[in-house]
């Protein structure tokens, strides 16, 4: 174990160069700049706490969201972190077509999140264009249940795509984005 720790000190970090904030996401978030007051921006600084909610995903989205925490993407270097409770969260990162069996839990999670708060619908299912949206067991999209601030598309979105979307939100929320 000593060798492994020593290597960790001596080798260069494996961390990737961060992706640029997503241009399309920036556009979607332009309206957010107006909604976030100066006071909220001060409170948030450049840090966002994220509560992930699986509302009927197949688990592929979760695998890639989990990958954000590995040493290559190192989410926390951006001031972004996953929290265990919605009461600690600024952002709900929701996946899945919102199954009818999960709808109430999703709504209650949103209610438990203090304002100012944002909702990201992550993955094609959450955006309402997945394969399951027509089912008797699904509401169809996150937007049908909660006000969505940002969509991140993909089946599932790769960690790089997730990161680009999250960085756009960070820019918009902190009011430091170009053009915001």
């Amino acid at each position, binding site marked *: *174990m000593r*060798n*492994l*720790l020593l290597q960790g000190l001596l080798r260069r970090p*494996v961390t990737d160069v961060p992706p640029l904030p997503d241009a399309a996401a920036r556009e979607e978030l332009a309206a957010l700049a107006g909604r976030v007051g100066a006071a909220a921006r001060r409170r948030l600084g450049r840090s966002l706490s994220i509560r*992930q*909610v*699986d*509302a*009927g*995903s*197949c*688990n*592929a*989205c*979760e*695998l*890639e*969201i*989990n*990958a954000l*925490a*590995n*040493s*290559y993407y190192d989410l926390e270097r951006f001031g972004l972190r*996953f929290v*265990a*409770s*919605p009461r600690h969260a600024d952002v709900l990162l929701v996946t*899945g*077509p919102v*199954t*009818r*069996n*999960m*709808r*109430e*839990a*999703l709504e209650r*999670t949103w209610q438990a999140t203090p304002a100012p708060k944002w909702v990201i619908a992550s993955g094609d299912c959450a955006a309402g264009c*997945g*394969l*399951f949206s*027509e*089912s*008797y*067991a*699904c509401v169809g999209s996150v937007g049908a249940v909660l006000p969505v601030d940002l969509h991140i598309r993909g*089946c*599932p979105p*790769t960690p790089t795509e997730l990161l680009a979307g999250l960085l756009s939100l960070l820019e918009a929320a902190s009011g430091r984005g170009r053009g915001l």
Partner: protein
Amino acid sequence: MSPARSARPSRAGSGALSALVRAGRLVAPGAWPRSVLSTDQWLQLYAGFQAGAFDLVALWGEPGWVHIAAREAQTTAIFSLACPQGAYPALGRLHAPAIRLERALADLVGLRPQGLPDARPWLDHGRWTTGQPLSRRRRRRAAQPYAFLPVEGEGLHEIPVGPVHAGVIEPGHFRLTVNGETIVRLEERLGYVHRGAAALMRGAAVSRAARLAGRICGDSTVAYAYAFALAVERALGVEAPPRAQWLRALMAELERLANHLGDIGAVCNDAAFSLLHAHCGMLREQVLRACHAAFGHRLMMDGVAPGGVTADLRDGGVAVLMELVETVRRTFPGLVDIYDETNSLQDRVVGTGVVRPEWVRRFAAGGYVGRAAGRPFDARRQAPYELYGELAFDAPVLSEGDVNARVWIRIREVEQSLAILDQLLAAPPDLPWRVDLPKPSKAAREGAALVESFRGDVFLWVRLDATGALEACWFRDPSWFQWPLLEAAIEGGIVGDFPLCNKSFNCAYAGHDG
């Protein structure tokens, strides 16, 4: 811990299952025949389960019919019982592993299992737009509070957990009843991720259904798509060309590798040992990046389809994968040493969450849950498909049944997957990588498959209509027979060990809920 002994297929059994197939009315011939049984014969089938002679593979239904897939030694067969009145004698009253399957059958098809000891709904939480979505007469069920099993006694305390969990994981509800730190009972409630996949597949074209199959359980997308492809190909009497079989095996083993690496790290993380989590996470990421380079998708979603695969290996793919195998082989043993030599970690995993061998035998639990407790079943060896009949590899088995044993099975399987990848990468077959699917014949048009995902054996059954679209489909995730054992394994343990034990099972929610 010493290397596990390898599993060899056991000798053929007494042939009682084959005798039942012959006794019934054969409606779908083939390697896995389907026979319609009389009520008397049906009860003989039940007696076989009760006596431990047969393994329950799956139980599902259609309006007016209940189907059971069973296995004895090397034989797998499907049996059907007509139930025109919508009722049939419950298997769950004799054979506990059937209980949840029968509750789900009642929810989805509306068939009434008579005498079932637990008649509560399972997947249907009373919130769907229709009740009994797979039946002809759909009655919507009103939402009612779920009646958890009563637990009475002095000093007992209930801890409800979920469906929204603290980590980035799937939703489900756990009701823990504790006395101090000790868990008196765990009761699971699942179904939160039910998306109605089986109903969506009904009537769908094969190409759309294949995409659905690949999204039933995202971490096993290759295994599910593989099982679906095999089932459809068997229904149509066609075989994928050698290069497609080769690409499928590559994808299946890479998926296993990525998931096992992720799981080993995650178990350590739940024992508060984040160093191995970080290093295993890096290895997993390298696997996914190699998959992206070789197949164009990190999880290889939609890679396998009936008739073959959806794309050939990308240029340079073999070299990328060979380099990956080298990297894992160079790095992984050092991590295993740390796992084995760190006392604080061993203290948490050894002897925790013990699953008894008789439980896995009774539940026919597959994957690392079964193989860590002495049940050697691995579909790649005991029911080999495509290239797995020719590849040299072991299916490691241990008998301890604790968290540590489940981690060691994964460690050994990482090594076996690397050995399989070596063999595959040394000999890429020639094109083509797909064949056109033939028109369906007038005959049975049914097919079934059992594919070993990283978690255990995935069962999938299809019946095609005359146009080649899906008339009916059913799938059974390995978790159906593992989730109940988690309840048993945690009893008497402490609350702090529950996340650790749960992670060592890593049962599927989406795959189970469907």
